[in-house]
Every structure is written in C-alpha cells, then in structure tokens.
C-alpha cells in the first residue's frame, strides 16, 4: 500500500466505495499529502454530507462526522465552536454544497469561520445515477434533463468569494501538485477557505455528459478543459472559451469569526466584572 494510505487510511473500511476511475481516491491522496506535510492530523475534525465525495472523509483515520445531505457545514460550525483550535475540514460535492447546502455555504463564508470546505465538482449528481446539478452546463442531457439542461450553472468559487470567503481556489485531479499546495494553504489559512476540485466521474459524467465512460478519456477531458490562470482577466477569457479556469483566485486576511467571538466574550466578561455591561 502507498505509505500515505498505510499511515492514514481506515483500513477496516476498505475497499473504497468509489467506482473504478473515480477522482475521489486522487483527492484522498492529495489531501493526505497536505495533512502529512503540515503534520495536522491530531487537530483534524472533518465533516461530510451525502454523495460520493462525502465518503472521502470517512476513509481517513481521524475524527469524522458524516451528516445529512447539504448539512456538513453547520455540523462543522458546531465542532469549530466547541473547540476553536480544531482544524475543521468539510468534504462536500457540487450538489451537496451548491444546491441543498447552498444557504449554509453563504452564511459560513459571510461569517468567515476558520474552516476549509472542499467541494468535489463532477458536474452532476453521481451517486443517485446522473441527474442535473447546479454545476451542470447548459444543454447537457442528464437523467432528469432528457431534452437538455436549460438552467445556467452556478460558479461555486464566485459565490463563495462574493459571500465573504477569504481563500478561494479551484484545481483539478489532473493538477495534483497545485491541489496539494491549495489544500495546505487552506488548512493553514485563518478564515473561510473554499477549495473546489474538478474531478472525473467516468461512470456518470463521462457516459452522460462527455460521451465516454473511459477513465483515460475523462482524465484527458479535465486536462484539455481546465486552464490554469494567473489573474481575473484571464479567467474571463477562459470562461468565454467555454473552458474551466483553475487557480488560486483569492486569499486575504479578514477578522475571523471565532476570534471575534472570543474577543467579544472577553470584553463582556471584563465589563461584567466591573459591574458595567449586563
């Protein structure tokens, strides 16, 4: 077994439930490499929702709370709130995070809570058999858009940034070095970090959206259709070509929620001790 797997996987839970050719195993590896490099395993508290990508967290031998569809972010907030020193990471998918859990994403980003949200984007609902998601391109035929999708997709990175996330990156499973670096940035960032990973799903995305269930084809598709960019103008250009821009889009320092709460508590307690603020 890969030494990272030997050290970090919950071996009694193997084999993975991921289909052959799935990108989730690659994300497990990239994430574990980041954890190994940072040495942050004991502090790790993970949450996950429902969907293939949610299982990424379960195979990692660390504390994990896998909850309901879309609810991984509030569960993470509960864990962070009870012990702010935790390194809280949420594994979620495009449907889990942007559809059913969209409201929670907005408000956690707005609060700039110190946590990392990893969104695995395979452009549709895969676990349920290939239905349209908020990330699916216009025109795509899925099990629930048999005549082609008429809805515009949502860009999770832009939504997170607009809502107040202080770190936003998007990479793909075909960019492991950049992905590991993005994970490390996110895990050490003080604030709400949003890392989207474009990932191949040969079984659903490949067969229904891209025309081939071959893992090689799907991986090559990511290489051909994801373009790393350096700045915003390039990003628009890449999007105009119908391709997916990748990059470290945003990293800024802003007051973090739990820090602000701690300061407020201290201020209030001090005032209370002096007989002031009730």
């Amino acid at each position, binding site marked *: 077994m890969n030494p990272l797997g030997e050290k970090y996987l919950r071996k009694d839970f193997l084999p993975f439930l991921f289909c052959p050719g799935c990108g989730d195993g690659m994300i497990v590896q990239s994430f574990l490499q980041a954890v190994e490099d940072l040495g942050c395993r004991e502090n790790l*508290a993970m949450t996950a929702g429902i969907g293939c990508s949610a299982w990424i967290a379960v195979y990692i031998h660390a*504390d994990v709370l896998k*909850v309901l569809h879309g609810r991984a*972010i*509030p569960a993470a907030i*509960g*864990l*962070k709130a*009870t012990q702010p020193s935790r390194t809280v990471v949420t594994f979620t998918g495009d449907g889990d995070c942007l559809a059913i859990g969209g409201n929670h994403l907005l*408000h956690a980003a707005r609060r700039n809570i110190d946590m990392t949200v990893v969104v695995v984007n395979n452009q549709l609902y895969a676990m349920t058999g290939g239905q349209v998601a908020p990330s699916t391109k216009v025109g795509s035929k899925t099990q629930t858009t048999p005549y082609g999708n008429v809805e515009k997709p949502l860009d999770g990175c832009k939504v997170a940034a607009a809502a107040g996330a202080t770190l936003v990156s998007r990479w793909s499973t075909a960019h492991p070095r950049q992905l590991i670096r993005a994970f490390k940035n996110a895990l050490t960032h003080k604030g709400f970090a949003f890392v989207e990973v474009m990932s191949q799903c040969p079984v659903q995305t490949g067969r229904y959206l891209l025309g081939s269930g071959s893992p090689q084809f799907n991986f090559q598709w990511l290489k051909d259709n994801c373009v790393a960019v350096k700045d915003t103008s390039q990003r628009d250009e890449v999007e105009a070509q119908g391709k997916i821009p990748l990059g470290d889009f945003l990293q800024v320092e802003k007051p973090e929620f739990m820090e602000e709460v701690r300061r407020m508590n201290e201020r209030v307690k001090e005032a209370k001790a002096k007989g002031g603020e009730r």
Partner: protein
Amino acid sequence: MGNEACAEAALLAGCRFFAGYPITPATEILEVMSRRLPLVDGLCLQMEDEIAAVVAMVGASWGGAKSMTATSGPGFCLMQEGIGLAVAVEAPCVIVNVQRGGPASGQSTSTAQGDFYQARYGSNGDYSIIVLCPSTAQEMFDHTVKAFNLSERFRVPVIILSDEVVGHIREKVCIPDADQLAFAPRKAPTVPPEEFVPFKPDADGVPFMPAFNTGYRIPVISQAKSLSGNRGNAREADENIRRIVAKIEDHLDEFADVQVYGDPKAETAFVTFGSVCRAARSAVDMGREQGLALRSVEVKTVWPFPDTLVRKALAGAKRIVVMEMNLGMLQREVERVIRQPKIKIELFSKIGGIYPQPQEFLRFLEEKR
C-alpha cells in the same frame, strides 16, 4: 417566564452551545442564551435557519459540549431531519418546542398542542425518543435539567414539548443551587483508542462517547451502521436500529412520569398534558367545592408513552375525558392503553388558540353526561 426558566436551567445544567433561529413563541430562549452564554465561555449562534441550528447542535455535541436548540412548530418541522440525525449518530442534545398553532404558519402567538405526534414520529424511519411536557414555569426549569440528564444518559435527543402558555407564563420559579442538583456526565470511553469499538454498546445498550480530537479518531456516519461505525450490512443495520430503540424503551421505568392531581379514587378522570394540566387542576378544585370528586391524570413524559403508569393512574375510573388543545392526539394513546368495553374515552378538544377555562371542563362533564 417559562422560556427564561428553561434557559436558566440549561445554563445550570452545563449547556455551553446553543444554536437557534428566531421564532415566536420560543425566541426568548435564544435571546437569554445570547446574553448569558458569552459570560460562561459558551457560544450562542443565531443560524441561517432551523436546519442549520439543529445540525450545528449535533456537531457541538460531538465536539464535547452540552448543546441545545429551541423553536416552535414551523421550525420544528425543519428540524425533523436533524432530530433523526441526532438519533442516528447518538448525539446527546436538547430540543425545546414551544408549541403554537399549526399547520404551516398557523397561529404564531397562540397556544396549541398539535405537535404531540410530530415530536415522536416526525423524522424518517424507526427510532425512539424522549419527550417531556412541562405545564408550569417551574417545570420548564425542572424538565430542562432532566432533559440534559436523560440525553447524556441515553445518548439521545430529548424534546421538551412546551407550549405558548407555559413558555410565556410569568410565575415564581425556585432555582436550586447547582450543588443540590444531579447532573449526568457524558459516558466517556473506558478503554484506550486502540481497543475502542465506536458503536459497541454497554450492557444498557448505550455506547461510550469520546469527544472529537481526544485521540479516538472516530467515524460517525448518519447511516445505519456496524459496531465499527461503517455502513452496516442487513444484519448490522437491523441490530443498530433495534438497539437505538431498545436503549430507550427498555429503561422507561427510569424516567417515566405520570402524576395524579385531586382524588385518586374519583370515578371521573381527566387526562391532560402540558399547559392544559393547569386548567384541569382548577377544574378539579372547583369540582371539589361543588361536591364533585375528580382526578386529573397529568402525563409529564409523553414519549415513549408511559402505558403502565397511565393505566395505573386511571385504575377504577368509570368516566375518562382527555383534555387537550388538538383534535384528539393524546386521546388516541389513552384509547390504545385503556381497552375496556364499558368505557368510552371522551375528548374535550380546544383549538384556535384560546386557552380553555376550567368552567368549560365542568360544563363538558355536565352536558355530555
């Protein structure tokens, strides 16, 4: 105020995380907690909705804190998936439902008792849950302490099914010193991490619970699970579900509470829960003055329904009238428990938001005779 008494009790019981969303008539609990929790190094969060509130509470519970939320009907609907989650991941927590009129938005400022069955059966699948029904501000306090203790004891969400009258009533509450109260501790693992089996139950059916980041590296999933915490096969899922039901139902004697007010041998008995107990007590007193012997059977722990205690409290009664502010929910349970061909379980039902007067109870006895 009942809602304030509830918040005081939670703080005293050691609650250090509260997540809520404003909703009439439960908002005061969130308001008090937001004022008080910072003073004891706790955290009160007003979330984006009740779904987030209940799930954050489950996260905080696994994070190691005693946790709570409070809501009313429409919010209680949203919380149902999270209540099922708390049941499945066996997270101790307390959920207060200060009932108002329903369905949907119903009557936001008026009292009702229509969530009787929702409190028990609102989430999907087979499960068991504990539901306590206070009828005074003092009981809002006492039941909240009890709710935290039972939730820790059985690793189950405990629901305090209050209503607008009890939540908003202003009356005397005695708050004992903390050292006069007993608080159930969380059942911590007794073996080191390498020997620990995450969902292996103790003899009483309740597994041990390590908090996150204490070295146990525990997998907690919302699926029906094996003892190791992985998705269970058919046999493991069967055992898992039967266990989380049995750990509550097998220990009903530990916490079931049914009280009798008035003449315990009276031939005419009321059966009540929640705020209606108050009007029933007055009716019993008024009856006594008129030479009419009455007893009022007050069901304090409505779920799991205390069949044996209710049967005992109603022994010898010739006429049984269930008094409630819904269209006959408690009545159905009493009908299930009391199966005597000669006794019809009668119903005095008041809905629409006006709290019943004791005179109405006595009039009912007269007119329906």
